């Protein structure tokens, strides 16, 4: 009996153990299964995490952020203009550069190391109005994928980040659209079918109307100034135009055509001519009935922008997608300074001019074919190849002057440079088990320029291991190359900074990035990520020091010097995307260094945007269906700059007979600025609060109006953008004169309220 009871007990325990084990594995399998779905559902509590949380946990790629159009539209920004790049600036690991400008410095990289693809069309210098607005019309944007740590092998050409912007597909059913009016510009988007369910188009147009205000204002001012013989000229406008036409052949195949045009034009100057006082003076002198007529005009013209077209064809196979595309992309910038004069309109010999013109151009023509296939649940394969022909005008300089009959011309155009780039890639994603996924990719590039080829391989790898249904760890590695660079000696990205290709004399920029991270889901529809990263950069380019003393006829390559950089840090992010209250907190910790043999006496120095800490808090609260509040708070350790702390004497009046160009400052005693080390000073910390409110109004026939009111920099913190030296305050004292020399911070962005109205139909 005892034996039987013991045996039954043993069996019971085995059975219980077995049931526990079965239950455990079932739970794991159920959760593992649900991880693969786009919507994650827990057994006891129905919580829909959505795409973002799922991707955060399961996507083997690290540092990938997918942003929907709603987030871009809701973020309170300067002048109320939604801006893709400003949205990206709020992410951890991304430094915004100088306030107000759409700079993007990702994981310690520079602004020109970011590739922007607009539905596959590459664009250069993506900003309007000096960077205050980005080049992308958010009404045309459906989605945005931003990569900063790991990169799929299909992307290449830049070493810091990829921003892949997906356009809205046109509406195949009905005529729809949006109009928006803001303080500085207007935005329109319409979409309609041409053949229902077969062919449809969409068009987006955005234009500033600063000139609509400035032109009549200046006309009034100039009417008043006319008697003084002065006319002021100032005009600025930007426009961007997007177009898309889609045609569905059948359920399997479709094609689309995309067009983009975006340009800025700035004109500023003055014209002087005979004034009423001149006329009166001459008439009173009795020398002549009419004063001599003359003019003296000084005009600066700056224009820049992109245009491009892309045609693509998609064919859906049983378990995959075949894609082919062809495109033409064109970037140009131009700066003209013209001084034209004639001292006496009756005497042609008094006519003259000085003109200088600087140009920079890039034309890309490319095509690509790719295939993406899913083979069961365990293997995803993507492969492709492409070719791009680049035509560069790296530096076009023309100086012309005329004095009467004498003409001087100096055309120092660098010759056009052509390059051919061919590439192939493949990406393999293995879901080895339910817990482990591994992505291995390879991209090969050959870049042929000036009878020289740069052949490079770019390995990519990512690993994801699910520790539990709610936590995973990931690791990644990526090598990237870049064959064109925008060299700048400024802290703000200007269109006058030249895009210049890598040549036979210069090596391609290279980055190797290593990443490791922990990802997880939290209660209440929240998820988090903690990513550590290290990036090594080689063959970075800067202008050589002492460029002023170099031969102005030097080839542009000879003005440059190469060096290296490295950066490392941690990106932490917590997000909540569901419910009435949503938002995110992002924190980035970073170190960012550079070393050039020919700069800073060969010593290591911090990069300009070595922002040690960065904290972004974004919040969105939907009070009800009609009213939404948004807020954003940003804190960042200050940028670095090169500031002269000490001054030293010039020869000056101690050598009175020596030739001199005069003291650089008002006072000889102040002397000359002494610069010891690059980026030696850190600016004060930066912080800012933005508030916004959207009021949705349902109108007749399903139409909708949205009022948006926002306050940029709500507590008016005058964040300094630079530090300068001020020595103009002279204090006269009984014992002698004394200069009051101080360091001063310079700020220029106060609180900026804005309002806009969007009409959706």
């Amino acid at each position, binding site marked *: 009996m005892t034996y039987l009871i013991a045996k039954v007990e043993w069996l019971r325990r085995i059975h219980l153990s077995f049931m526990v084990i079965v239950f455990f594995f079932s739970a794991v399998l159920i959760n593992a299964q649900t991880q693969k779905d786009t919507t994650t559902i827990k057994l006891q509590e129905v919580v829909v995490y959505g795409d973002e949380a799922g991707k955060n946990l399961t996507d083997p790629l690290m540092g990938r952020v997918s942003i929907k159009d709603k987030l871009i539209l809701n973020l309170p920004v300067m002048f109320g203009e939604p801006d893709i790049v400003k949205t990206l600036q709020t992410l951890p690991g991304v430094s915004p550069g100088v306030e107000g400008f759409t700079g993007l410095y990702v994981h310690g990289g520079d602004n020109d190391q970011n590739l922007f693809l607009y539905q596959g069309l590459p664009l250069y210098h993506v900003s309007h109005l000096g960077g205050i607005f980005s080049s992308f019309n958010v009404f045309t944007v459906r989605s945005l994928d931003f990569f900063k740590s790991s990169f799929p092998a299909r992307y290449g050409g830049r070493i810091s980040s990829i921003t892949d912007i997906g356009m809205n597909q046109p509406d195949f059913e009905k005529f729809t659209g949006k109009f928006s009016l803001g303080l500085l510009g207007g935005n329109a988007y319409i979409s309609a079918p041409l053949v229902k369910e077969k062919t449809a188009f969409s068009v987006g147009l955005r234009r500033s109307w600063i000139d609509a205000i400035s032109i009549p204002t200046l006309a009034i001012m100039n009417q008043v100034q006319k008697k003084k013989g002065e006319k002021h000229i100032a005009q600025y406008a930007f426009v961007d135009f997007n177009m898309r036409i889609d045609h569905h052949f059948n359920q399997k195949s479709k094609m689309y055509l995309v067009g983009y045009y975006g340009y800025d034009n700035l004109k500023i100057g003055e014209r002087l001519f005979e004034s009423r006082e001149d006329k009166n003076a001459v008439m009173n002198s009795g020398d002549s009935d009419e004063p001599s007529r003359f003019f003296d005009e000084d005009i600066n013209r700056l224009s820049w922008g992109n245009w491009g077209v892309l045609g693509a064809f998609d064919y859906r196979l049983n378990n995959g997608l075949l894609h082919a595309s062809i495109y033409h992309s064109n970037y140009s910038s131009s700066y003209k300074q013209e001084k034209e004069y004639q001292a006496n309109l009756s005497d042609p010999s008094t006519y003259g001019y000085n003109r200088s013109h600087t140009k920079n151009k890039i034309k890309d023509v490319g095509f690509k074919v790719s295939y993406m296939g899913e083979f069961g649940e365990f293997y995803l394969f993507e492969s492709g190849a492409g070719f791009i022909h680049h035509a560069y005008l790296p530096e076009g300089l023309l100086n012309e002057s005329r004095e009467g009959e004498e003409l001087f011309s100096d055309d120092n155009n660098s010759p056009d440079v052509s390059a051919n780039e061919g590439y192939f890639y493949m990406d393999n994603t293995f879901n080895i088990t339910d817990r482990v996924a591994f992505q291995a990719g390879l991209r090969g590039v050959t870049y042929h320029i000036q009878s020289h080829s740069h052949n490079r391989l770019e390995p990519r790898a990512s690993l994801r291991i699910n520790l539990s249904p709610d936590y995973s760890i990931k690791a990644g590695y990526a090598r990237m190359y870049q064959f064109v660079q925008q060299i700048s000696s400024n*802290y703000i990205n200007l269109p006058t900074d030249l895009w210049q290709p890598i040549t036979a004399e210069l090596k391609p920029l290279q980055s190797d990035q290593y990443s490791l991270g922990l990802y997880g889901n939290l209660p209440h529809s929240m998820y988090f990520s903690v990513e550590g990263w290290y990036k090594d950069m080689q063959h970075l380019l800067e202008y050589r020091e002492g460029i002023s003393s170099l031969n102005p006829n030097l080839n542009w390559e000879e003005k440059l010097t190469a060096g290296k950089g490295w950066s490392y840090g941690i990106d932490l992010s917590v997000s909540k995307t569901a419910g009435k209250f949503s938002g995110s907190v992002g924190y980035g910790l970073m170190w960012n260094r550079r070393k050039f043999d020919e700069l800073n006496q060969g010593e290591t120095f911090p990069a300009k945007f070595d922002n040690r800490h960065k904290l972004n808090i974004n919040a969105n609260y939907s009070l009800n269906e009609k009213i939404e509040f948004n807020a954003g708070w940003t804190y960042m350790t200050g940028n670095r700059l090169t500031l002269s*702390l000490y001054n030293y004497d010039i020869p000056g009046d*101690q*050598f009175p007979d020596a030739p001199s160009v005069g003291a650089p400052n008002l006072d000889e005693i102040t002397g000359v600025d002494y610069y010891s080390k690059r980026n030696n*000073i850190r600016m004060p910390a930066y912080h800012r609060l933005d508030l916004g409110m959207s009021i949705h109004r349902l109108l007749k026939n399903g139409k909708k109006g949205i009022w948006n009111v926002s306050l940029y920099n709500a507590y008016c913190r005058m964040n300094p953008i630079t530090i300068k030296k001020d020595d103009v305050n002279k204090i006269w004292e009984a014992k002698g004169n004394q200069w009051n020399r101080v*360091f001063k911070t310079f700020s220029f962005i106060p609180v900026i309220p804005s309002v806009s109205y969007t009409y959706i139909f």
Partner: protein
Amino acid sequence: MKYVYFIIIALLLNSCYRDIDLNKHREMEGENLLTINSIINPDSTVAVAATRMFFFSDVHNERVVVSDLDIELHINSEFIEKMRFNAQRKLYESVSRPAIGDVVSLQTTFNNTKVQTADIIPESVAIESINAERQGPMHIYSGNDYLLTYRITFSDNPDEENFYFLQYDVVDKRYDVDMGERDFTSEFVFQQLAKQVNGTLPGWEPYSFYGLPFSDRGINGKTHTLVVKEKIQGEFSNLTAQKQMNREFKLYAISKSYYNYLVSLLCNRSDDGGIHGGMIDIGVADPIKVYSNIDGGIGILGSYAVEPKVIDIFSFTGKFPQ
């Protein structure tokens, strides 16, 4: 409501500039670096100014002279003498006088750091001829202005890279017609200078009260005529009162180091019309370091040679009409 407006305006007009204390960034290097300045020529003995740098926001009303240095003068690698400090002029002075073509070098030690520099005295260049012509009265700034055009001819030595500096000025302010505005913009060599100063961002124009440097790029080995101008405003000048209008033309031959130094000073003038100067002024552009050839220190050792020429403008143009 008025109170609200006042707050808003006060906020908006909140100073864009604010003082900041950077004393915590004082550097050992800045406190201990010696400044050496010396501009030498074959017509005088060698003089050297030795001073210390100063932290910009410190009270600093006169040069801080270093008077206890042992400065050695070498000419053509041969030690010549130790220079003596003249307390009245606050300069170290030599007894010897260098000649054209001499390599002059200075050596000293300051705070255990060896400081040395060298430069070569260029050969002077002769002005072969000067011609002047006058236009006006015409409108430049007012209806009673005159434009004088000067053509200065000289020959460049083809065997080497040459650097120059042009200055022209009134001889005697008591008796000569007042100096007008110097205009270098029409002259090719100064357009080359403008290209160099501006880099790829044009905007700087060759105007100067003091004169301007130029190089022989584009005129190497040639006989070249410099065309420069002087704009005289009739209402502000003593045109008819003065009986003479002498102008002294100085075409300096300068050393390469001194040329680089002068050009780098021009590149740092943030008060010019160039975009880069403007951006340096508000602090959003990388500054351009002023050139220095002092090893272990800072400053400049430059050299020049000159043969001035004086002409009476009225001998070419006649006097100004009454």
